[in-house]
């Protein structure tokens, strides 16, 4: 299992065909992608029209521009995939297009709801949907660039340590920089303000660190599989090999303490744990990691009031409804979801203006209210398909680095969804984190488009017909060789 399996166990259909009959060209499935993309575009257009109708607005030309811009962007993305990663998985881009499109529609819808709102400081609501379209454009540009300039994902492994260093700095930078350049927004210190731009370096750090960990673990994985002591029927790793795990744990705690960003630290720690597990194939790491996490969580809960608040809000949001930093947000989210019920209020007919942070952390609550449980479940399933298709690419790719990186990226998406959606539905304590591709925010969108490009690159590598190996020296057919007498068994 350790060595890359030449047959690509994951996708027997495609790979077997390529391997057994090199003369036949493997299907690229780009046509399938185009059909699914068109379907996604149709859904998004329908959603936009519904919003406009329910808000009693005439279908203006602006809608047309937004729609055309959206279609053009994803048509370009499709062409980019066609050109630079023709064998990429056909389901991933349509999932992303649907999520991103729905996100745009909902952000536009929230703009309409908040239009004319005057805030306490006298400022008025500034519509952001158009900005998000621009960010989508830039995101897809990065996506295309990643595909173009990274013809082989294994190139990344060479820069593992550089990425790790940059990632670590990016992750911790907002926490240590002074307030004027790294302001505290909504209690979290995760932003860098450069001129008119606010960026969240943590979103990019997530990917950089994943590349580092995957490269690091692949090069050193033999070390981690050396058994240490046996304890309770498990092979514990040797103490000195625990270094990376403790390092990750330390960084996680630092993020939690310095930036008060519980969501990101949870996400980051989960990813490291999964990468370790996949690299070593040993559950001991998971148990150990969960133990460390639980210990850290309990200590954090004891030490930090903002952690205690989150837990108390989670246990009984209504009881703490009127407390500052209390259960108001999560209560509003639950009210929205419950009022939406099974069928939802209808796109454009809900009350997103009552949900705090509606277009970022709580955007799924808006969708749950307006599209109901049906739409909410569909949304979760789209995320699942997206993540599982990404994982499928990781399983069928041939190199260890690709497997590790692909698995980590796919898990990261799914885990992030779990953290944010679990938070707004009161499954787990609420931790501020964005919903991939849905939430408003340039950094998150750009980072996630790079993530998708990497997943597509890995899946393309998995499905592409292998380049013809150097021709082996011609050997005469077996039939032409001399018969050799083998010693008869006694």
């Amino acid at each position: 299992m350790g060595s890359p399996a030449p047959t690509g166990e994951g996708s027997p259909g495609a790979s077997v065909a390529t391997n057994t009959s090199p003369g036949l060209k493997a299907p690229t499935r780009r046509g399938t992608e185009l059909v699914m993309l068109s379907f996604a575009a149709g859904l998004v257009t329908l959603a936009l029209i519904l919003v406009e109708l329910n808000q009693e607005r005439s279908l203006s030309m602006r809608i047309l521009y937004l729609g055309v811009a959206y279609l053009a962007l994803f048509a370009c993305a499709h062409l980019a995939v066609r050109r630079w990663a023709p064998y990429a998985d056909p389901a991933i881009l349509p999932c992303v297009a649907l999520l991103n499109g729905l996100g745009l529609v909902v952000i536009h819808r929230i703009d309409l709801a908040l239009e004319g709102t005057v805030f306490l400081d006298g400022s008025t609501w500034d519509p952001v949907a158009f900005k998000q379209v621009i960010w989508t454009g830039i995101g897809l540009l990065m996506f295309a660039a990643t595909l173009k300039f990274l013809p082989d994902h294994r190139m990344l492994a060479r820069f593992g340590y550089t990425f790790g260093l940059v990632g670590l700095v990016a992750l911790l930078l907002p926490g240590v920089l002074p307030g004027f350049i790294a302001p505290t927004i909504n209690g979290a210190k995760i932003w860098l303000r450069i001129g008119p731009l606010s960026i969240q370096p943590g979103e990019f750090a997530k990917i950089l660190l994943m590349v580092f960990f995957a490269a690091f673990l692949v090069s050193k994985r033999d070390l981690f599989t050396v058994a240490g002591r046996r304890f309770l029927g498990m092979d514990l790793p040797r103490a000195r090999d625990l270094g990376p795990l403790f390092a990750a744990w330390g960084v996680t705690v630092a993020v939690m303490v310095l930036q008060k960003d519980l969501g990101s630290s949870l996400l980051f720690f989960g990813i490291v744990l999964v990468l370790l597990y996949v690299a070593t194939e040993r559950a001991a790491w998971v148990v150990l990691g969960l133990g460390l996490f639980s210990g850290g969580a309990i200590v954090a809960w004891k030490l930090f009031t903002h952690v205690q608040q989150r837990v108390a809000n989670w246990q009984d949001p209504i009881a703490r409804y009127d407390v500052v930093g209390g259960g108001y947000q999560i209560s509003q989210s639950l009210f929205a979801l419950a009022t939406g019920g099974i069928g939802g209020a209808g796109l454009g007919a809900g009350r997103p203006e009552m949900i705090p942070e509606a277009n970022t952390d709580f955007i799924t609550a808006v969708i749950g209210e307006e599209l109901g449980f049906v739409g909410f479940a569909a949304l979760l399933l789209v995320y699942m398909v997206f993540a599982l298709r990404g994982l499928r690419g990781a399983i069928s790719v041939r190199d260890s680095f690709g497997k590790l990186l692909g698995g980590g990226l796919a898990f990261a998406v799914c885990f992030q969804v779990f953290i944010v959606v679990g938070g707004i539905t009161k499954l787990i304590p609420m931790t501020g984190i964005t919903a991939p591709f849905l939430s408003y925010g340039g950094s998150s969108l750009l980072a996630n488009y790079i993530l998708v490009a990497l997943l597509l690159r890995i899946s393309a590598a998995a499905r592409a017909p292998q380049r013809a190996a150097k021709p082996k020296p011609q050997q005469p057919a077996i039939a032409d060789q001399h018969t050799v007498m083998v010693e008869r068994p006694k």
Partner: protein
Amino acid sequence: MNTPLRRVGMAMMVMILLLLGNATWVQVINADEWRKNAYNRRVLLDEYARKRGLITVADGTVIADVKETTDRLRFLRTYNAGPAYAPVTGYLSVTYGTSGMERAENDLLNGSDDRLLARRISALITGRDPVGGNVQLTLNAKVQQTAYDQLTAKGFTGSVVAIKPDTGEVLAMASTPSYDPNLLASHDANEQASAWKQLTAKDANDPLVNRATQALYPAGSTLKVVVAAAALADGKNKDTQYTAKGSITLPGSQTPLPNFNGTPCGPGETVSMETALAKSCNTAFGEMAGQVGASKLRRQAEKFGFNDPDLTVPLAVETSTLGPIPDEASLYQTGIGQRDVQITPLENAVIAATIANNGKRMQPYLVSKILGPDLKSIEDTEPDEVETAMSTANANALRDMMIQSEINTGGEGRLQNVQVASKTGTAEHGSDVTKNNPHAWYIAFAPAQKPEIAIAVIVEDGGDRGLGATGGKVAAPIGRAVMNAYLAGR
């Protein structure tokens, strides 16, 4: 590496399944708990977002209007001439719910009534906001205003009800002290709260109670018309002789039953029923009730509308009762409207109207029409004859006696050129009749020969006359002014 990757895939699916399960709990199974939570203002906002129907009086003048605001609660309920109509319209308050017509016709006004179904569906198709239906009342603006002004001019606590005898339409329904429903309908929570506190204060004298339908009073001498009707039905006539003593002893007891001031009813031993009614002699009517008997008296009262717990106009109406009549003595006392007789001003007006309408009791009603949002009539209320309480001959005989009563009654404001039939009452109440000022009653209809309006007036606790108050001095002038307002304005 593929085995752990597959396990990671399983973990991802489990995460999504957990989210789906939790969403099912929040949005479907347990949704009502969150939807109906007091903090969830969505349901309320939905109701306020719909344009509520108007309430108008008979000539179409709007008394409960809606105004569009820029608040979160879109439509503000406004009441024109609030206090005069408040007992009928009631209030619509975010915090304190509804009362009066706002409650009785809430479904129609907020647009959820089934009678508006066809219009709701068409609104759904055309994409317009659903709008509530309108309620047109039977109230006559002039009569209502006169009734309210008459009661408030001297600061009386009491009530006036006017009914059109041949249909049962309620022409006026006033109750004082009243209140301004605009304060309770305010979108400013503080204004609402302070108004509520003031209106429900101990010394505020229950302004929120509509005394016409919700207050029960001893009927006093006004009940003598019911006793007389029972006696007429029993074969007696206006010339039947009864005792003229100034005071008699109740049978089976030592308790005296005196006339007003103990004055004998006439020079002789006996007086006719006509004289006894005109002079409101207690001794004669005690004897009359004793002769009729409890069961016949009760049946006659029920024919006039007593003991009807389901009566709605459509405001809910308290049940008027004669109370228990365990023995002869209590029958005598019941015969003069004391003991446990409890009656609403509305019921007393119904009695007057029934006599006026040749003994035929019409169902009293306040809503003349239900109009769709487009002001097209959806439903017209048809006058409903409930039952024949008296034969026409007996009703005419009783009317003639009441004409004599009016002639005998003092007080100001006698109608010129219009014959009035009436009966006064001065109802003692409380434990000590020498300290508790009596309630002043007046029931009447006019013109006597061709009645167009029947009224009942009560002024609590003697009005401005204290212990010396009588129905004739305190209540009759109000009743006459109200009738005059209607008859003069024809």
